[in-house]
């Protein structure tokens, strides 16, 4: 995904970027209206004091940063500026910068190593976050880059999960390895690996059933998938992506922590950022786990996957133009 740019000419790239940002922002904007409105109110009226700091903290809380991270970010922010007269723009810009600095190390795209064939990407997460859709989007992106892609319908549990992935496969023009509902997902992943290897496929995307991280037997099932893949290739899976729904609150921390134990994660994909949830928990995640955010989802279509830009995200959060 990373080394070859998705779009050819630079112009296209710029237009594309504007479009995605506009889309992200129109989503973010709807609720950051409240946020920025709030900040404007605070800072045109008075200088940065104890009270305005508390309000700033509240605004961050409303963006799902969580009480602890919100307090820390607001506190750090106020450190240098305390007691000074500040304009609303300064506050927004500076706060966005500060958040961007926290997120910057996390803004890393998914790297596909062309030397590894098949490069196996395992996609995991709790129920309904957007795993299957993200696989469709990723496959589309990879196909557009000219790579061969194979999909593995590893969710053998949920009703019509297999059909769902098969439709994505047809849309994108990628073969789908599927078994029967109820089949062993580990066995299926194994089959898919063998086939991808035999056909010289560059990237194998493995879908998995949604699983709540507090269910030990389901986490064991995930471990088994990984064990079986490693029998073939010790380095597999080469990427393990946790798909996180941006509407999720503080539970995201527990999700990352627990999934990390069962399946060492290489990155996150944050979906549904086209809604009004701002996904501020990513800031808490970046602080605590330093885990990369590989991409974000901004819609239900095949094209609606975007690289994660710390600056755009943070500025969008503050309701500022890209």
């Amino acid at each position, binding site marked *: 995904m990373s080394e070859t740019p998705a779009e050819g000419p630079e112009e296209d790239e710029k237009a594309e970027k504007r479009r995605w940002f506009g889309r992200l922002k129109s989503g973010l904007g709807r609720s950051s209206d409240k946020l920025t409105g709030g900040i404007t109110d605070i800072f045109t009226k008075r200088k940065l004091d104890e009270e305005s700091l508390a309000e700033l903290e509240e605004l961050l*809380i409303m963006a799902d940063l969580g009480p602890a991270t919100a307090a820390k970010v607001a506190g750090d922010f106020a450190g240098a500026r305390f007691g000074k007269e500040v304009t609303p723009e300064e506050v927004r810009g500076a706060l966005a910068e500060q958040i961007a600095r926290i997120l910057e190390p996390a803004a890393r795209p998914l790297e596909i190593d062309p030397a590894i064939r098949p490069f196996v990407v395992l996609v995991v997460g709790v129920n309904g*976050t957007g795993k299957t859709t993200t696989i469709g989007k990723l496959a589309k992106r990879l196909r557009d880059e000219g790579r061969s892609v194979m999909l593995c319908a590893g969710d053998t549990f949920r*009703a019509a999960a297999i059909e769902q992935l098969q439709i994505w496969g047809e849309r994108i023009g990628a073969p789908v390895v599927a078994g029967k509902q109820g089949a062993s997902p580990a066995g299926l992943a194994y089959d898919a690996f063998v086939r991808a290897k035999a056909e010289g496929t560059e990237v194998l995307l493995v879908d998995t059933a949604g699983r709540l991280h507090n269910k030990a037997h389901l986490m064991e099932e995930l471990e088994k998938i990984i064990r079986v893949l490693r029998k073939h290739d010790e380095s597999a899976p080469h990427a393990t992506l946790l798909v996180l729904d941006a509407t999720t609150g503080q539970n995201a921390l527990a999700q990352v922590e627990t999934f990390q134990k069962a399946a060492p994660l290489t990155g996150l994909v944050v979906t549904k950022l086209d809604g009004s949830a701002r996904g501020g928990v990513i800031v808490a995640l970046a602080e605590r786990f330093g885990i990369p955010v590989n991409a974000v989802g901004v819609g239900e279509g095949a094209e609606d996957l975007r690289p994660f830009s710390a600056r755009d995200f943070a500025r969008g959060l503050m309701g500022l133009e890209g």
Partner: protein
Amino acid sequence: MFESLSSRLGEVFDKLTRRGALREEDVDAALREVRVALLEADVALPVVKTFIEGVRERAVGQEVLRSVTPGQMVVKIVHDHLVEMLGGEAEEINLRAAPPVAILMVGLQGSGKTTSTAKIAKLLTTRQKKKVLMASLDVRRPAAQEQLAVLGRQAGIATLPVVMGEPPVAIARRAMQSARLEAYDVVMLDTAGRLHVDDALMTEAEAVAQVVGAVETLLVADAMTGQDAVNVAQSFDQRLTLTGIVLTRVDGDARGGAALSMRGVTGRPIKLMGTGEGLDAIEPFHPDRIAGRILGMGDIVGLVEKAQETMEEDEAKRLAKKFEKGKFDLEDMAQQLRQMRKMGGLEGVLGLLPGVGKMKKQLAQANVDESMLIRQEAMISSMTVKERQRPEIIKASRKRRIATGSGTSVQDINKLLKQFQEMQRMMKQMKKLGQKGMMRGGMPGMPGMPGGPGLPQR
């Protein structure tokens, strides 16, 4: 990760010596902790504020009962107020209208609408003997209609045949027509996931609601939802006049503050909660359980019920008796280990228990994890019956034999035995707690751990 509210408040009030009535500044100090607890639980900030104000009014000036600490007093006031706000008693699905009664399911993408549609249909069919038809109006998500059809086959519920290319409003109309002709009592309408900020799709939902004359319009929302829950619930309510909320994924370990947010901002009742992926995993809403969770005090009631539901009555009694006499042997421990794994492992069980903040840390330090549970089971199964009943006879040579037999080390055996002793000690403590009335129903099980498998397969 979360300290329980009670232990937090304990710290606040430790600093005070007991006083007659709760004073304003003490209450304020306590409420600062309550505020953080609610925010960590994802209750939306505006709702937190209103809630705190309500508690404050009640708490200031309250006499502290002699038998409790000021901290416990505040927790009780907070808990009671929370239960009240969440809506005292569970409300049922309203079917009081001329059949076919239309029930419209709406919500964000992936919240659990399709699954909940099938769950409710099954509930109405089996419990209330209704004839239910399900129809999928989701023409957007790949294989959405197929998903509902599969669930219909699994649950033995009729689904409206799919006509390719038919738009949602037309499907809705056809569903109602078929239901009238074929004398169905209820029509469950599953819709595509939609963002509340997506005007076109919200307009479409309005049109559907109107065409079918929905008696129930239920918002299906994820218990893990963060601060955005207020925006979502408010928008859906404004556009569609909700009649209730279905809270899904309550089987997760989210604190579930979204329940309070949505209820607080719409006033609509939470009618049902989803507790798993299976079609029977749906229950009436239990405000007291969710209240305990939001406060980080553990879902004690749920835990006890779960344990009672699934554990053989006789077995429970047998174990309870053993505990009373302090005769808890390794065989019992092995059984508890098995049951615990089935209940979602240590973490799963602990998440449901009160005051686990500290214990979780201890466990983390002790390196107790799932594979450890399995290893311990293996060790116990390598013991003789006598050894299991009287662990004190396990000396050096026996230890070596057991270690070889279970593929572990003598050190591991020592650890196991030490843990067993620790359990016996904790069991005594637990018994004391039980006498204080915390563990209603004489819960059987490992000290601090409940007995009984409970969670459905998924």
